[in-house]
């Protein structure tokens, strides 16, 4: 039998490669200067979905909630093999915490026919790992977190291996299921050249409008005629109750944000000579740090 997979992805600032250009003079990070990337573990989730499709058939639908620019990760998903991409964008999504985000995404997922929902374990901007389990709860389906490998898919039965931190666990459960995928799960494929050529002009209406061009409508129409207009939903379209979205739908609020400043402390330069190293070791023994 074939399986329909929904993959939830996120566009994130690349917090892993913070270059000098993205640093302010006071040692803090200029978040705006970080490049936007496909959240790494979401690529592992996409790879797993494409793998399921390759083995068993079915459709791979990729969804993201974000600003119009987040269409970029949807295009990347199309290059890699996704059948359909959907952008969930709405100003009223702003300031959503993980609970509101999971509510919005669960409304969107409910609109499509799915057997398996996949997402990365966590996003590198927040590192919370909360949205996956919260979506599973809202959809009322089983969650399998920290997925390392699917061992067997047979009819409605899934056998999978999880990495539980200090070991591994093999579990069996029935579909539908939501799985959060870890980076050890697979090696994500790169964009296929043919698909890249086919989808490079794919765009969402919001993305075209955001460029501020006068003929946005005409451009969208032209892209639509080529079958390359990326589907776009707003909160009304997915039937979301606004009370559970955005700032109002978010129980957690920010009290304060402090930038981490990397600063020098009281420190000593030690020559890389036997004498200086021995003196340092001696000092550490004297003050009972070692020995």
């Amino acid at each position: 039998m074939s399986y329909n997979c929904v993959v939830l992805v996120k566009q994130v600032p690349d917090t892993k490669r913070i270059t000098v250009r993205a640093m302010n003079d006071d040692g803090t990070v200029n978040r705006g200067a970080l490049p936007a990337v496909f959240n790494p573990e979401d690529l592992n989730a996409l790879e797993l979905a494409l793998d399921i499709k390759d083995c068993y058939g079915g459709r791979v639908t990729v969804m993201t909630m974000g600003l119009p620019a987040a269409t970029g990760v949807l295009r990347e998903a199309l290059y890699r093999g996704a059948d359909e991409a959907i952008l969930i964008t709405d100003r009223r999504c702003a300031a959503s915490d993980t609970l509101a985000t999971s509510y919005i995404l669960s409304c969107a997922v409910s609109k499509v026919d799915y057997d398996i929902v996949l997402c990365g374990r966590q996003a590198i901007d927040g590192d919370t790992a909360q949205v996956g389990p919260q979506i599973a709860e809202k959809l009322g389906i089983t969650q399998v977190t920290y997925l390392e490998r699917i061992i067997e898919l047979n009819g409605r039965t899934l056998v999978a291996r999880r990495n539980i931190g200090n070991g591994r666990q093999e579990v069996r459960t029935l579909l539908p299921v939501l799985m959060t995928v870890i980076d050890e799960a697979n090696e994500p494929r790169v964009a296929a050249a043919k698909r890249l050529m086919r989808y490079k002009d794919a765009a969402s209406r919001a993305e075209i409008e955001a460029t501020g061009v006068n003929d946005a409508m005409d451009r969208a129409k032209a892209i639509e005629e080529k079958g390359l207009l990326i589907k776009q939903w707003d909160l009304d379209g997915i039937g979301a109750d606004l009370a559970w979205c955005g700032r109002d739908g978010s129980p957690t609020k920010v009290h304060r944000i402090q930038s981490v400043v990397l600063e020098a402390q009281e420190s000593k330069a030690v020559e890389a000579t036997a004498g200086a190293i021995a003196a340092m070791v001696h000092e550490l023994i004297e003050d009972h740090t070692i020995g």
Partner: protein
Amino acid sequence: MIDVNTAGEVWIFAEQRDGQLADTPLELLSKGRELADKLGVKLAAVLAGHNVSGLSAQLGHNGADKVYLVEDPLLEHYQTNPFAKVLDELIRKHRPQIVLYGATPVGRDLAPRVASSMKAGLTADCTDLQIGDHEVKKTGTVYKNLLFQIRPAFGGNIIATIINFDRWPQMATVREGVMPMPEPDTRRKAEIVREKATLSGRDLPIEILRQEIQERKVNLKASRVIVAGGAGVGSKENFKLIYELAHSLGAAPGATRAAVDLGFVDRDHQVGQTGTTVRPSLYIAVGISGAIQHQAGMSESKKIIAINSDPEAPIFNLAHYKVVGDLNTVVPMMIKAIREKV
């Protein structure tokens, strides 16, 4: 969600496996004790499992005033749904103001499921918790004695303080190893409150077929001295230098994520945001450039020695002793000096 209940207790989730408590619930008790005392309320542990009542005493010794004990054969092995159901039911019944979980694989699997069913807030991976007041600027309303949920975000580049003032309970997962362990007091006893879970087989959608637990080969958290190697060590072969230096000091060998990804050493040794958070007396960073994710896991070390050939390496900003030089000559010099002195 539950209504704001300023008389509510402070709860911790007492994670156990095969009838053994990990360190994390004990660390939560030490922080929870501080919070409960500040608020003038009781500190309770939620202990769920099969035949686990024996752990109640240990929870009491480590600071719990109360243990909510839920025993059921269906709770013998952890899986998400039944444990989430137990917590959901207990929280609705007793209305605690704060619920803390360890940011362990289990805690991070369980807490969001509970938060979602409760429609309550949850802050992940806190490194500190405090009690404080929050003013809503627009209305001037001041909320007193809220839980300040303090966590690094953005790859450790910012520290965010998160609150929730209107939809309770206030819940957080707390990173392992960042709270001190309590001093157990064997005279302290916790009141045991037995609770029933309304569980049936239908609440267990997962069948655990096999489980292999590998005890960690290295206990970074318990080590006074850590010698850690980074990508600069160059090869798996050369990582022997790290082991040798560690051995000479009775230290634990650690590593950066880069060194682990390069296959120099296995993941048990990883220090940093996605690895273990450590706070040893001495941290010797060898061939480590000092990515912020690594710093997040070791910056609280009392003393730091950095050995790196690149004088611009960010790790030097943290180091108390900076050795600019080739680790292949510096490390043997250190080993020699240690062997001669000790």
